[in-house]
């Protein structure tokens, strides 16, 4: 299923799309909230899939994964700063040997834990019990499913991914995930299967709920729409297909000032596999660190110092402010 893609060096979109000037033109400034709510930890780029839209360039060929020592620093940071939510991402985070320990220790501290789970990883050796592990620790599962039809899903995520994803959702449902009011949260993520903006979140969530139930008897809680970011592997796709300029123009034209307030970079602190700190996972992949004067690594972390500070921005930020807005929790301006 997973095709080894070479590591793509393409990082930033071309052109002079100045996000900071756009904010200023609307009288807006992008500053952090008073506290960090979400501690988003990327435990590495190793993945069993190699999706065409992946902003991480994750694949089975990647070797960059968080060490046990850095994972220990993550837990220490949770103990010290009591971030309400730990959002674990990758790659496929479950493939990191420290993953289960990090989840268990974070939950023991009372931290809400979300895992960006790609569904198919539960069919990898040693991962078969993931649904039971997630249930045992009341993990919130967030899973990408680009569409409720095979063609669009496999086009983005690789041949055979749709069938495996449906089977994985069955397993998660069977242990109690996705039932309304059941307490075990299963949220899905919709990414457009191409160079266009996501539909309205509420409308496409209703489509997914109706179709997944009718076709496969599957249930989930909420659906997040996330815009494809013009960086790394998706940017390479845009360039290969002659869509870069058109897509960037679309993002800039669709700039929505109302989407700015809810941007995830305002209340999220992102950590990479080496322990470096960023304003978001996208900045992390561009190696665009937090602004000067702020702690740069986990070992220097002082969460209070981020309050009210500016966020590092670039042309890719237009991806999060287009249309209804986009964040790791979906639309930011009313889907």
């Amino acid at each position: 299923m997973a095709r080894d893609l070479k590591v793509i060096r393409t990082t930033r979109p071309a052109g002079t799309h100045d996000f900071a000037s756009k904010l200023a033109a609307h009288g807006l400034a992008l500053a952090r909230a008073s506290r960090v709510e979400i501690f988003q930890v990327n435990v590495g780029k190793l993945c069993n899939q190699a999706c065409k839209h992946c902003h991480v360039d994750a694949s089975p060929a990647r070797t960059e994964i968080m060490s046990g020592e850095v994972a220990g620093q993550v837990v220490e940071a949770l103990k010290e700063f009591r971030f309400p939510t730990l959002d674990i991402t990758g790659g496929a985070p479950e493939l990191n040997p420290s993953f289960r320990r990090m989840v268990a220790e974070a939950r023991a501290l009372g931290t809400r834990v979300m895992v960006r789970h790609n569904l198919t990883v539960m069919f990898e050796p040693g991962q078969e019990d993931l649904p039971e592990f997630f249930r045992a620790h009341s993990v919130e599962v967030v899973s990408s499913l680009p569409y409720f039809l095979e063609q669009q899903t496999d086009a983005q995520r690789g041949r055979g991914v749709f069938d495996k994803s449906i089977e994985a959702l069955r397993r998660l449902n069977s242990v109690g995930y996705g039932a309304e009011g059941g307490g075990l949260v299963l949220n899905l993520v919709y990414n457009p299967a191409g160079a266009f903006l996501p539909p309205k979140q509420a409308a496409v969530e209703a489509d997914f709920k109706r179709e997944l139930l009718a076709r496969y008897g599957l249930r989930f809680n909420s659906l997040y729409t996330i815009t494809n970011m013009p960086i790394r592997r998706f940017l390479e796709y845009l360039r290969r297909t002659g869509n870069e300029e058109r897509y960037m123009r679309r993002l800039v034209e669709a700039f929505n000032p109302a989407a700015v307030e809810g941007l995830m970079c305002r209340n999220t602190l992102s950590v990479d596999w080496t322990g470096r700190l960023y304003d978001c996972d996208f900045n992390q992949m561009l190696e665009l660190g937090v602004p000067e004067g702020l702690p740069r690594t986990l070992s220097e972390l002082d969460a209070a110092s981020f309050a009210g500070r500016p966020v590092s921005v670039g042309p890719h930020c237009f991806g999060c402010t287009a249309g209804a807005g986009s964040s790791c929790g979906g639309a930011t301006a009313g889907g």
Partner: protein
Amino acid sequence: MAYYEEEDLGRFKEVGKHRPDLFEKFMAWYEACQEDGALSRREKALIGLAVAHALQCPYCIDAYSQSCLESGSNMEQMTEAIHMASALRGGAALIHALQAHNSVDKVSM
């Protein structure tokens, strides 16, 4: 040079260079038509796609293909809309067979 250039779609506002008052009135009406109302934006985008095919306007086909995707339609739904437009165009041509019948009947014994 081709008669139709993809980039020209983004230059639409240049039509307002002359008589901008008329163009602004058109744009206000056009944009108001797109909004959610008794019909959803998605339904309106599918109607737009069908009409674009009936008119065979490349700019409109390009714009409404994108609108359909961004309002959550898939290719099955879009293709059904295109078949609706095509069927109407086919039917509209075919019913004129009666004109031919009438014409032939008039001059036949």
